[in-house]
Each structure stands twice: as structure tokens, then as C-alpha cells.
């Protein structure tokens, strides 16, 4: 029973990089995140492939969510947080203070753990962000609302009640609405922080199906505590442990024959 700090060699890592044929969506180089003096992320270098789902897994305190949030600079919002290292998106280091955070977040969208629709109509939930980003004209908005709801596999269920409150939807529908809201802004990358952990198995399954559909058009990076979820839907999996990534490989490899003992212990549920 490993996966405990005394027995786990944090220097032993197995990180598989992309090969030339695999197009890169975003990557980090030697990323560190500090909260005051506490170093939450201890130098993580990862590459994320385009149009794939990558799962970030690991025990509580492994800092996988912190890492996810740093990818679209959500950690900027925390005053004590300091992020060093590079986040490369389209050959630009977006961890540069010169880079506009709002443009970044438009291209790298985020969906949170608890569905958090606005207390507005289903239609307005999506149109709101578009209007704020300067999209005008009823027809254009209608079209964008419809497209993103279709992509989030929610259109058929809500098309006759677009003016109803989003809060009347089920948890799974609300979460898909939040996904639709994020993709309405046409991001390239979608970050999801435990998007199904507050949902029952049926809603979870709906969200998973939606994500599998979405990867045709988006690059998806998802933090999940649910290892079965990671194994079901993701192409690649990164195992986070105490601010390090100990292993990063194809999901099938991670769940059938991982290289690092701590990964094996974690995914098979053998923990101290």
C-alpha cells in the first residue's frame, strides 16, 4: 500500500510527450504555482493534444485543480498566488502579464464542479456572454444559442422552453447548459473541474457522452475524482501527486499497466 509520501519517490516520473504527428493544443513548461510561501505545483511540464480528452487525476491535495485553473490564468484572481514557468498556447507564453486575460479565457473556457447557471432564462444564459463580447443582432444570437445547445446535446430537450428559467433544469441539464455557455464563446480548449461530481449516474453519463461528442471540435482537459470516468472518456491521463505529475500517458496504458507504482496503487484503489 503505497501512495504515501514516505514511500513514494517523487523524483521517479514517467511523462510521455507528444510525437510529431500529434498536434499540440496547449502545453506547460516547468510550471510552478505558489500560494504565499507554499509551493502547490512543483514544476509541471505537460503537453495536451488537440481534439483529445485529457484527464487529470490524483488524490485531494495533489493540486490537479490548481494546475487546471492556471491554464486559463484563473489563479490570477487569487492575490497570494504566483505562477512561474511557461504556458504555451499557439506559440505564445500566455503566462505573460502582458497577455490579455479576457482574450485568454475566451479561447480557453472553464466549467466548474457545481452547475452554476445564471438565474436567467436558458436563452439568456448563453446569449449573455455573447452580448458582453460584442455579439449583436437577434438572428446571430439565436443561431449561436442554437448551435451551442446542439453541441452540448441539450437542444432537443430545451428548444421549446428557451425562455424558462435555467434553474428549473435537472442537474445534468444545468451542467450541459454551462458547457453550452462556455462553448458559445467559441473557445478552442475547454477546461472542466470535476464537472460531474455533483451529479447522479444518469446525468453523469449525459455529460460524459456530451464531452465525447465535443472532442471533435474542442480540446478537453478534465479534472476528475472519478477514476472510472477518466478511464471511460479520456484519451490521455495525468496522475498528479503532491504538486508533481508522476505519470502521464495514454489512458489505456495508465489503467492497464502504468509505469509508476504510485499510479498503479491509486488507480487500483490500494491506498494506505
Amino acid at each position, binding site marked *: 500500500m503505497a501512495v504515501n509520501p514516505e514511500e513514494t519517490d517523487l523524483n521517479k516520473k514517467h511523462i510521455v510527450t507528444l510525437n510529431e504527428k500529434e498536434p499540440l493544443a496547449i502545453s506547460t513548461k516547468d510550471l510552478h504555482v505558489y500560494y504565499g510561501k507554499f509551493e502547490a505545483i512543483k514544476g509541471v511540464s505537460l503537453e495536451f493534444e488537440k481534439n483529445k480528452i485529457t484527464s487529470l487525476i490524483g488524490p485531494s491535495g495533489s493540486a490537479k485543480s490548481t494546475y487546471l485553473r492556471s491554464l486559463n490564468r484563473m489563479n490570477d484572481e487569487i492575490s497570494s498566488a504566483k505562477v512561474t514557468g511557461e504556458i504555451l498556447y499557439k506559440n505564445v507564453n500566455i503566462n505573460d502579464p502582458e497577455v490579455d486575460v479576457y482574450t485568454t479565457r475566451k479561447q480557453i473556457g472553464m466549467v466548474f464542479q457545481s452547475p452554476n447557471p445564471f438565474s436567467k432564462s436558458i436563452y439568456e444564459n448563453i446569449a449573455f456572454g455573447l452580448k458582453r463580447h460584442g455579439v449583436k443582432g437577434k438572428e446571430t444570437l439565436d443561431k449561436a444559442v442554437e448551435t451551442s445547445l446542439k453541441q452540448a446535446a441539450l437542444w432537443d430537450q430545451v428548444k421549446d422552453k428557451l425562455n424558462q428559467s435555467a434553474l428549473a433544469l435537472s442537474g445534468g441539464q444545468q451542467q450541459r447548459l454551462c458547457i453550452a455557455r462556455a462553448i458559445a464563446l467559441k473557445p478552442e480548449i475547454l477546461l472542466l473541474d470535476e464537472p460531474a461530481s455533483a451529479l447522479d449516474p444518469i446525468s453523469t453519463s449525459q455529460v460524459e*457522452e456530451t464531452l465525447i461528442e465535443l472532442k471533435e471540435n474542442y480540446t478537453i482537459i478534465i479534472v476528475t475524482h472519478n477514476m472510472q470516468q477518466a478511464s*471511460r472518456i479520456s484519451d490521455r491521463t495525468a496522475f498528479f501527486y503532491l504538486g508533481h505529475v508522476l505519470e502521464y500517458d495514454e489512458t489505456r496504458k495508465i489503467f492497464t499497466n502504468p509505469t509508476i507504482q504510485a499510479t498503479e496503487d491509486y488507480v487500483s484503489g490500494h491506498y494506505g
Partner: protein
Amino acid sequence: MRRAYEEELNRLHASFFRMGRAVNEAIHQSVKAFVNHDKELAKKVIEQDKEINEMEHELEQACIELIALQQPVTTDLRKIITVMKASADLERMGDHAVSISKSTIRVKGSKRIYEIEAMISEAGDRVEKMVQEVLDAFVDSDDEKAIRVANEDLEIDELTRDIHRISIEEMKKDPDIVLGATDYMLASTYVERIGDYVTNISEWILYLNSGKIQELNTHHNIDDLNN
């Protein structure tokens, strides 16, 4: 729902069926090569067995990944287990086709007994038909058909017993036939074993539908052939 998963399950079934067809072709060619003393065709069967082994390996890998990644339960799990077990049976059938081919290449005796060769050929044809039928029963998960195919194996056993009996009689009559007749006995035993594996697959088809592991027709070992 769970479309990607369903697609993978369907792919698994299709690959299994493909492997079954390849094995059946190997059986057909090995028996044909044996009765025609066609060493070239026999070599080809041995050569092609690598592909069959490769197919089994891939199927096994796909099953392991489905179990590890998709947490299958009940019918889904049984489908996967059935493919895993039945593909191992298919692979062994392929090995027996190789064994038949090896005796074709080895064949030294120049004397032939056309009556026995015709019987081996018939056993080969029947077993080939059984393999085809058991694959169909698998695809349709047809219990009745599976049981029927398993029963046909009794006829193969009978035929094999006859081949052995006649071979021994011929050997007693003519010492020059000993080498050749020994090969007849070996080849027919391999064919008979293939029939046993068909029965195993029938058992897996019943398992797929019922969840119960049950023995079909009592067993047929080469040891009780002379009883």
C-alpha cells in the same frame, strides 16, 4: 447512451467473427492439403497461423482494455468474457490445423488408403461446417443452434473412432502401411479435437445468454476412443 463503449463492443464481436473465419479457412486448407499430400498448401497454413495468433492477441488486449476502462457488468461483461474464452478456443483450433499440416509435410509412407483419406476428408468437412455454424450461433446468440452443433460433435467422435479402427486393421494386414496409417490416426485425432473446441464455444454461447457455465455433451477424449 455510452456510444463509444457500444461501438467498441460491436468491434470486438466483428473481430471475433473475422478470426473465426480465418481459423475455419485454416482447417479447410489443412485437411485438403493432408488428403492431397499438398506440402505447399500445408506450409501456407503454418505460415498463416501467425496471423491467427496475432488476431487472438489483439482480441485479448481489446477485452482487457474494455474491462479495465469501461467497468462492464452483466451482459456486457459476459460478452467480453465469451469473446476472450472462445477466441482462445479458436486459436487452439488453428494450432490443430498447423499440426495436421505438419504431418502432411512429414508424411513418409508412400502407400495410401483412399478409403481412410475419404473419411478424414469427410470429418474435415463436417468439422468445418460445425465451426461455421457455431460462429453463426455466436453472432445470433442462438442457444438452440449452439446445442445442435455440440451434438454434431458426437458424429465426429464416431467417425474418428472408425478411422482409428480401420487404420489399425490395415496396419495389422500390411506393415508397409504403418507410417502412413499412424499419420491418418494423428490427423483424425486433430480433427476430432477441433470438434471438441467447437463444443467449448457452444458452452460459452450458453453462458453468454444464461450466465451459467454448463458442460455440453459428456467428454470425448482420445483415451476413450477405443472403448
